[in-house]
């Protein structure tokens, strides 16, 4: 339950704050949520990781679909040296996931200090 609440909270707050702040706000959000809501460190990591995997992966997939993947075909060649919109979406999801996962872990480790 706590996992789900954290997950949804990180997703929601990351989405909203990204409208106004630079991309790294997702790290601050994941850190803040995990330092408020106590979870075991590995679970905190998993929460942040999953939240952004879903958020960035989902957004990228949605944007790319309504674009008929025109851009992803081109950018994937530049970034992953392969014409694969899927790989570019996956890389996007993993990038966000790693940042949020580590930030969540840091948040939960900080909470344990007090």
């Amino acid at each position, binding site marked *: 339950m706590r996992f789900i609440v954290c997950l949804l909270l990180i997703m929601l707050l990351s989405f909203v704050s990204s409208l106004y702040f*630079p991309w790294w706000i997702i790290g601050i959000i994941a850190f803040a949520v995990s330092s408020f809501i106590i979870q075991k460190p590995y679970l905190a990591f998993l929460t942040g990781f999953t939240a952004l995997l879903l958020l960035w992966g989902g957004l990228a997939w949605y944007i*790319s679909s309504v674009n008929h993947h025109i851009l992803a075909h081109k950018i994937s060649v530049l970034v992953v040296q392969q014409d694969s919109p899927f790989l570019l979406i996956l890389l996007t999801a993993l*990038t*966000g996931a790693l940042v949020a996962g*580590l930030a969540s872990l840091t948040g939960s*480790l900080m909470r344990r200090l007090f």
Partner: protein
Amino acid sequence: MRIVAFLVSLVITGLLIACLGSRWCLPLPLGSFLSPQHGVWQNAEPATRQFNDELLFSSLQSDAAVYFDERLVPHIVADSDEDAYFIQGYLHAKFRLWQMEFQARAAAGRISEIVGEAAVGFDKGKRRLGMVYAAENMLKEAEADPLTKTMLDSYTAGVNAFISSLTESALPIEYKLLGYTPEKWSNFKTALFVKQMSQTLSGFSDDLPMTKAKAFFGDRAMRILFPQVADSLDPVIPRGTHYPPASVVPTPPASGDSLYIRSDGLDGGKLQEMEKPDKNNGSNNWAVSGAKTQSGMPILCNDPHLTLSMPSIWYELQLTTPDMNAYGVSFPGAPGVIIGFNENIAFGFTSSERDVLDYYKVKLKDDSKTQYYFDSAWTDTRLRIEEIKVKNKPAVYDTVAYTAFGPVMYDKSFPAAEGSSDALAVRWKAHDASNELLLWHYLDRAANYQDYTNALQHFTCPGHNIVFASRSGDIAIWHQGVFPARWNRQGLYVMPGEDSSYMWQGYIPMQENPHVLDTARGFVSSANQRPADSSYPYFINGAYDLYRGIAINRKLAGMQGITPGDMMKLQNDNYNTLAETARPLFLKYIDENNASPEGKKYYEMVKHWSLYNDIRESAPTVFSIWLGNLEKQVWNDEFEKAGVVDLRPSESTLVEALLKNDSTFVYIDNINTPEKETIRELANAAFQHTVKTADSLSNMNKLEWGAYKNTSVYHLLGEKMLPFARTGLPIGGGEHVINATKSKHGPSWRMVVQLGETPEAYVVYPGGQSGNPGSPYYDQFIDKWAAGEYYKAWFMKRGEKGDEKLVWKMIFKKG
């Protein structure tokens, strides 16, 4: 223990974010670049995007509207010039911001700022040629005129209105890839853009290689190798036209021969000139009178040939105000319609190819460049210190000395040839104050021949053949620009720059520029050939083409009852006039009986070829490789010895000499061998090489003309952005062919306009209205262009609203 775990985790997280947010550990900042709400995904435009909008600007004079048709072509309806140009600036920026900003930077020699050291040589070349100096001189003149001041100010305000509204996520993709942000636009940047076009079309000269070659061959031979008038020339103004005697007669310097013709010219080894514009920059245009058309109304056609690129150099639009209704293409970076038509007239351009850039060898006192010897005294130069900022590196400084001729382009610190210490100043017409924007101001509003010639007087450089047709039935063409009146052979070679006697003495008055109105033959045309035959009283050297003009005039002369469809077909005609002239040499000299079986096959192929450069034909590939090899066999021995890398006599010079079987044509002999070679030996040796090349091409399935030519439209950043390019397009044609589509160069806009109650226009260009590679409108027209098809332009009459063709509406409200 817990604090250690926390600190380790904190540091790793911090490092990861720093890494993903910058370029110090990865070539791209993957965090900001891939963030779906900030980065590149934001440039993925929904395929069904709607372009309706309502915008509020305090600088507008009144409300205005933009109607977009299904091809995303805007039809701007405004009540004042100010508002029309403001909106044009806004739309250019909205759809093409990166391109216009990049091109203005390139013109000013500021590419190192964004790509780093690799571009320092490029930037230096621009500074040395005096591009910024030229733009400053133009801007002074343009801002002194109230009409063009308004055009520029409103346009700039429109571009900046868009730039101010930009957020990080909305930045064009190229900024995100290269990691920089746009600067504010300015009138000066528009001037830079105009000067960039001047350079593209007139910023070249073969003076340096010609001088090197003359030192080897002598002036007498140079007259044969580089003749002024080809035997088969069909000039822009028909042969036999009477020209009055020249009213400006320049005096050749007394020392002419000794200093100019006999001097050895340049020191140093191999030439290393800065990159010159593509010699193939040219175009076709023509107009046929009502007497030759089915409708009885004149038809005007134009296809300007440039290096093909995406985003395209052109942006299509219609500009409507109470005193103007102009449709056509504009340059993102400049106000107005550049090639197009209105309700009364149509106009098109081809480059004049005239030489308006000369080099003078000056004597600098010392390396400080502060003084040069001129008219018997040491004279002060004006030093311009150029600061070239370099990405991630300290700035590079370069000092350019300005003389009475112009900037010293090449000197010891930027040598023209290996080890050369020559100081070469450049005299270029584009440096002089001018106001080309005024031409377009008047042309877009012109209603008749009088208005057109009135507009032309403002056009100084680069010179063009400007074709004209009016609804009232006139057709005309003017070879227009301000050209120096030269004494015979002035400016073919580097000139002595120690006194004023070799300078340009005056200019040809506009009335004496070659022109013609309503010819008896019922059409006017130009295709970069020499404008007039040898009876024209001025010396007019240039980098002219020969064959396209012949092909166009022959076709037009034989046509009657012409429809716009016929004209579209003509623009896409793949007939190879050079091959028609040169194939008899091939058939005469190639020894078919001694050839290998493959050789026989290729021989037969060329023998039975239709002479059309169609994509499925293999003969054009074989023939063009053979002719290229033959040229190398004939010329390379002499020209390599002369130290001349990239200058050779034209194909027509070689072909005409060989057809005449001229015994004084000594270049067939290879000077590096003791034997005396014959043309038969050279032709067969060239053919043997050709057979080998053709075999290997055939094995790779690249022998057919379309595959061999491989026409591709690259992104402005070149092969590094290969996914943004369209390669291997199925399109025929080639050099010296009316459909002048080469590998990376060709018709950048095709237009056929029939005047009448409402102008009926058919248009296409190899690109699309959006500069965003993530938009379906980025390369929308390319396949149609390659197939030789056109779109019917929707010409909106003023007051007309809400046609089904108009899909979106953008309202510009005065706020």
